[in-house]
């Protein structure tokens, strides 16, 4: 009988376990110790060097993602809460100004999020994260938190 290593050298298909008509039972997958012992050792050594940089990158990406999610929640909070704290304006000028102020307040979390990336484009990631966090403090939707959603 021909061993697995010599299969390519043989025309005898009956002894090939992968052959449909083979009389030989295919060996269970897990049992095959085909690869030499050097390979697992190399696999252990290899990842130590490479993932140092991508690890910080993915940490930052996850942080940006979480902060961006909070920004979205804040925006929803502003949309739901702002109607409770808006007064009907008397004249056109203050009506326009009030509308601008409302848009600014609703967009404030997103403005901080985008602005943080623009302003810290040459800074370290930690500075960017701190500016982003400061934005979350500065644009907290107080009307929604204190008064709840307006009906």
């Amino acid at each position, binding site marked *: 009988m021909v061993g697995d290593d010599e299969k390519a050298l043989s025309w005898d298909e009956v002894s090939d376990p992968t052959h449909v008509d083979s009389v030989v039972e295919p060996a269970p997958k897990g049992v095959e110790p085909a690869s030499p012992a050097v390979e697992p050792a190399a696999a252990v050594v290899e990842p130590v060097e490479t993932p140092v940089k991508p690890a910080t990158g993915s940490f930052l990406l996850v942080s940006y993602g979480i902060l961006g999610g909070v920004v979205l929640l804040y925006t929803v909070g*502003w949309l739901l*809460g*702002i109607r*409770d*704290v*808006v007064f009907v304006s008397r004249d056109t000028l203050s009506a326009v*100004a009030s509308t601008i*102020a*409302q848009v*600014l*307040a609703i*967009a*404030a979390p997103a*403005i*901080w999020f985008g*602005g943080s990336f*623009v*302003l810290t*484009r*040459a*800074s370290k990631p930690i500075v960017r994260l701190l500016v982003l966090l400061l*934005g979350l403090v*500065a*644009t*907290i*939707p*107080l*009307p929604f*938190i*204190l*008064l709840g959603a307006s009906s």
Partner: protein
Amino acid sequence: MSAIETPPEQPQSILAPKKPISVLTLIIAAVFGLLFAYFVYQAIANLIELPKSYAAIGLADSVPWAVLVIGLAIPVILYVVAFAIALRRPVLDTVVIFVMALATVAAFGYGIVAIHRVTFDLLIASL
């Protein structure tokens, strides 16, 4: 270009810059000054009108002066801070800083109104 030469973006931290203040920056600051002035005007109007309406319902002693004063201080302080940070930065950064400050002022403005609402409700409930 030599390798030792520092890129122009590098020293643009909040403290280090040596560039002169451009006229364009001052024009931008003036335009945003008008927008900030609207919020200052509103805060002053509140500072004058709110005590009157409190007095009208016999609560002249319970005027929330701290909230009124904070409401006036926020747009003034944020304008000064934004101006100080934006002064010697590129034009794009200057505009971005003022827009961020203005949005924060607008947000806090409505936040102050919400705080007024809550303190007034607590005041009424305590009577």
